[in-house]
C-alpha cells in the first residue's frame, strides 16, 4: 500500500536535519525489503512566529509503496531513528498517512495548504489526526513538529508541491544544452515544463543552469524551464528565485 511520510524537526542551529533523516528512512525501507520509496522532497511552510527561532520554515516528506505487514515495523523504526537523532530544543514530529484508509483526503490537503499560508494550531492538527489513515507522533520537545510533519505529508499527497534534495547534474561542461529526451533518459526527471505549465516536447532544447532543482508537479519529478528568447536552446532551467512557489 502507498504511504506518505512527513517529518518536521528543529529549531536549532546545527545538528539533526530532517532532510537527511528522510533519506535514511527511504533507504531503510528498501534495505529491509519493506517496499519501494520515492525521493524525499522539501516543502516550504509558513514561518510560525510562535516557534520563534526556527531555523527553516520547511518540512520533509516522501512516499513509499510498502507491504501492509511492514507499516508498524516502519513506524517503530522511524520513531526510534528520529528520537535518537534529535538534539535538545527540537520539537520533532512524524506523520504517516495511508490514503487507502482515509475517508476524506480533501480535509488533509486543505489543512496542508493552510499550513503553507498561515499559522495553524497544534490542536487543529491533532483533531485532524483523529481521522482514519492519519498517524501522528510527537517525538521530542513539545511535539509541535507534528503540525509541519502532517502538512508535508499532505502536500506530498497533492503531487504538486515540494523541491527535491540536491542539484541535478547533466553533462560536464558549463551551461550544457540537452534535449528534453536526453534529460528524461539520463536523469530521474519525468517531465519538463515551462513556468506556464506547458509540457515540452522530446526534441526541444534546454540550457542547464548552475543550480538545477527538480520539483514535484503532476505527481512527477519535474524540471521547470523558462524561455531564453533564442531559437536554440529555446529554454533554460528555472532559477531558485522562480521556484520559490514550490
Amino acid at each position: 500500500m502507498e504511504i506518505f511520510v512527513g517529518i518536521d524537526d528543529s529549531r536549532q542551529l546545527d545538528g539533526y536535519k530532517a532532510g537527511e533523516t528522510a533519506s535514511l528512512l527511504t533507504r531503510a525501507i528498501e534495505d529491509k525489503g519493506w517496499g519501494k520509496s520515492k525521493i524525499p522532497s522539501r516543502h516550504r511552510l509558513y514561518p510560525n512566529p510562535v516557534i520563534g527561532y526556527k531555523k527553516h520554515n520547511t518540512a520533509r516528506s516522501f512516499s513509499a509503496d510498502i507491504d501492509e505487514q511492514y507499516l508498524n515495523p516502519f513506524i517503530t523504526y522511524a520513531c526510534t531513528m528520529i528520537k535518537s537523532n534529535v538534539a535538545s530544543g527540537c520539537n520533532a514530529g512524524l506523520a504517516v498517512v495511508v490514503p487507502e484508509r482515509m475517508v476524506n483526503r480533501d480535509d488533509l490537503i486543505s489543512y496542508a495548504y493552510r499550513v503553507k499560508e498561515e499559522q495553524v494550531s497544534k490542536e487543529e492538527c491533532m483533531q485532524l489526526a483523529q481521522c482514519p489513515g492519519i498517524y501522528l507522533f510527537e517525538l521530542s520537545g513539545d511535539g509541535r513538529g507534528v503540525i509541519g510533519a502532517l502538512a508535508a505529508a499532505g502536500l506530498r499527497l497533492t503531487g504538486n508541491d515540494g523541491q527535491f534534495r540536491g542539484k541535478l547534474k547533466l553533462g560536464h561542461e558549463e551551461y550544457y544544452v540537452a534535449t528534453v529526451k536526453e534529460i528524461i533518459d539520463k536523469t530521474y526527471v519525468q517531465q519538463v515544463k515551462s513556468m506556464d505549465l506547458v509540457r515540452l516536447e522530446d526534441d526541444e532544447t534546454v540550457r542547464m543552469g548552475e543550480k538545477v532543482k527538480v520539483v514535484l508537479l503532476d505527481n512527477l519529478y519535474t524540471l521547470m524551464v523558462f524561455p531564453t528568447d533564442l531559437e536554440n536552446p529555446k529554454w533554460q532551467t528555472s532559477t531558485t528565485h522562480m521556484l520559490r512557489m514550490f
Partner: protein
Amino acid sequence: MWLAKNKDEREFTGGKTDWEAAARIAEQCSGFEPDDEDEQTADEAVSCYNCRYRRWTVKSFSCLLPT
C-alpha cells in the same frame, strides 16, 4: 536595512525578495556562512537569504549572527 527587534535580534526590512540588497549585505558581512544547500533560496551564492544565521519571519528574516 535592519529593524532591531530586541538586543539579540534584528529583522531585514527588505522582505523576502530583495535579492540585490541581501547579496550586497552578505558580501560585506564577515560572519556569512552558507546554510544547507536545500534551504538556500537565492541564486546568488553569497546572500543573507542563504545564510545559516537567518531565521525566517512572517515578513522577512532575522539575522541571528552573534554580535
